């Protein structure tokens, strides 16, 4: 059958993607500009045998999502910056205990209550380093409504495949604008499920080191009688403070992400083949950048767009691939300098970086980026 074509908000497309991925549990707390995700799932989940809970706060929402996932249920929550801060401790718990789940953060202007209904990209580093301790993280970031649909499915897939929470950042522009989306009857993206145990219940190890870097995860209630703790644990799941065992766990957690970058990293480029001026931007800012690149090309300037879709882990390869070819690299983001520092680090001085930074609650305009391109051409 042909796909259904709909005009949807980014937040609504996120819900459609989650349902397509098989989400069966949502716990959340109302917060602008992400609330539509909770509202729509409250309506949709009971119709598909899923369950929705409005919790007493953001912390509880994250906790409930992790609990639900342990029963083998695909689970998610959605929030905005201040709520994302509150979720961080339990997000760290989920990373460390390797419980799949998806956390959506529709960013607003901040810090604090900030500009609740305006766009910003101020939580980019919070997505990377918001939780405590040393940890890897996967974060994806759509630039359009159709991509919000697709990336939500991919976020669930990555989460299941690598037994880790996946963060999906959106900005208010992407979350609230309405755009054409094609919703296929059957998702075109294959749906991944977490690795499940194949050994006998007696021999099951929840953090087995001998089954690759992503150990199979049993469901609570299936008779495996396993322990999950936020304390440093060995492969049995029981706490340990032995440095040798701690090292094994910490290094495997990093390795399971870092050894799979080819699978995890997604980006898009436009007009980069012969580009002399690169413009790097993500989320809705990338759409302004795309327009700026087109306008520059119309004026004969060889500009090109680099758009990270997986923003964490940092796509070093995207930078190193083009750094030597470029005369200048323009980085545009709706904050006063976050991702650009990572870009600069990755570029290792091979290309001068031009910053287009804006934090005023408005999407950066194409002419602002075009002007920066003109300055460095």
């Amino acid at each position: 059958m042909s796909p259904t074509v709909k005009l949807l908000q980014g937040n609504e497309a996120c819900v459609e993607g989650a349902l397509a991925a098989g989400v069966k549990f949502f716990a959340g707390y109302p917060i602008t500009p992400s609330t539509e995700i909770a509202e729509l799932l409250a309506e949709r989940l009971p119709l598909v045998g899923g369950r929705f809970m409005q919790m007493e706060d953001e912390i509880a929402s994250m906790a409930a999502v992790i609990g639900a996932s342990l029963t083998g249920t695909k689970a998610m929550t959605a929030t905005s910056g201040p709520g994302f801060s509150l979720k961080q401790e339990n997000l760290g718990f989920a990373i460390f205990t390797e419980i799949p789940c998806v956390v959506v953060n529709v960013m607003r202007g901040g810090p604090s209550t900030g500009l609740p209904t305006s766009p910003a990209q101020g939580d980019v580093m919070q997505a990377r380093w918001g939780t405590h301790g040393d940890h890897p993280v996967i974060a994806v970031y759509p630039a359009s409504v159709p991509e919000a649909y697709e990336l939500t499915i991919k976020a669930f897939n990555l989460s299941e495949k690598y037994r880790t929470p996946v963060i999906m950042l959106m900005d208010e522009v992407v979350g609230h604008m309405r755009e054409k989306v094609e919703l296929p009857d059957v998702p075109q993206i294959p749906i991944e499920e977490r690795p499940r145990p194949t050994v006998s219940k007696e021999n099951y190890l929840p953090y087995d080191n001998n089954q690759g870097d992503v150990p199979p995860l049993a469901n609570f209630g299936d008779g495996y009688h396993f322990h999950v703790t936020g304390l440093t644990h060995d492969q049995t799941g029981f706490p340990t403070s032995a440095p040798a065992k701690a090292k094994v766990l910490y290094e495997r957690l990093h390795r399971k992400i870092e050894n799979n970058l080819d699978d995890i990293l997604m980006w898009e480029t436009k007009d980069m083949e012969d580009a002399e001026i690169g413009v790097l931007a993500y989320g809705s800012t990338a759409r302004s950048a795309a327009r700026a690149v087109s306008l520059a090309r119309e004026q004969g300037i060889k500009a090109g767009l680099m758009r990270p879709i997986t923003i964490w882990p940092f796509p070093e390869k995207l930078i190193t691939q083009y750094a030597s070819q470029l005369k200048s690299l323009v980085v545009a983001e709706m904050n006063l300098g976050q991702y650009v520092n990572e870009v600069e680090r990755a570029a290792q001085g091979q290309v001068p970086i031009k910053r287009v930074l804006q934090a005023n609650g408005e999407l950066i305009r194409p002419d602002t980026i075009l002007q920066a391109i003109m300055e460095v051409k």
Partner: protein
Amino acid sequence: MVERHEVRLSGSGGQGMLLAGIILAEAAILADKNAVQSQSYGPEARGGASRSEVVISNTDIDYPKVTQPEIFMALTQEAYNKYHHDLGPNALLVVDESLSLTDDLPEKSRVVRVPIIESATETLKRPIVANIVALGVLVGASSIVEHEFIEKAVLNRVPRGTEELNRRALDLGFQLAAGAVGGNK
């Protein structure tokens, strides 16, 4: 050729400008074009002036916001005063008869000033459909989408049982646009 059209619909919160914008965007999609709709949120959406913006294009839409509307609709004076400052050249203004215009409009802008609210209130006896009348005027005066698509989009969105009322509201809008003396400023 890339055709990009920027439309801004404004009125007071509760006048249904958001829905009108959504319907316009859906009509564009039915016409196999691309469309992006966005709106003002927060306190603005709860009274006072509010706006809904639509970008329509025959190709992919990169920058999703309206910067220089070529079609501007205002149903209240407050909305007009607040949102008319960045109109593009040759802009089409669709405004309610009750509004008084300022003299800072772009050269060559075209004004369609018709009794939208009065028509909904007096002719249809349902002020709630003023937004659909307005949409009829806007599409009638601009031809931004074909009649069949806007009609289909309206009927897809309105509550069941109100289809006939809304069809009449839309047609009334088209008639107002056709009868309007839409001369240059």
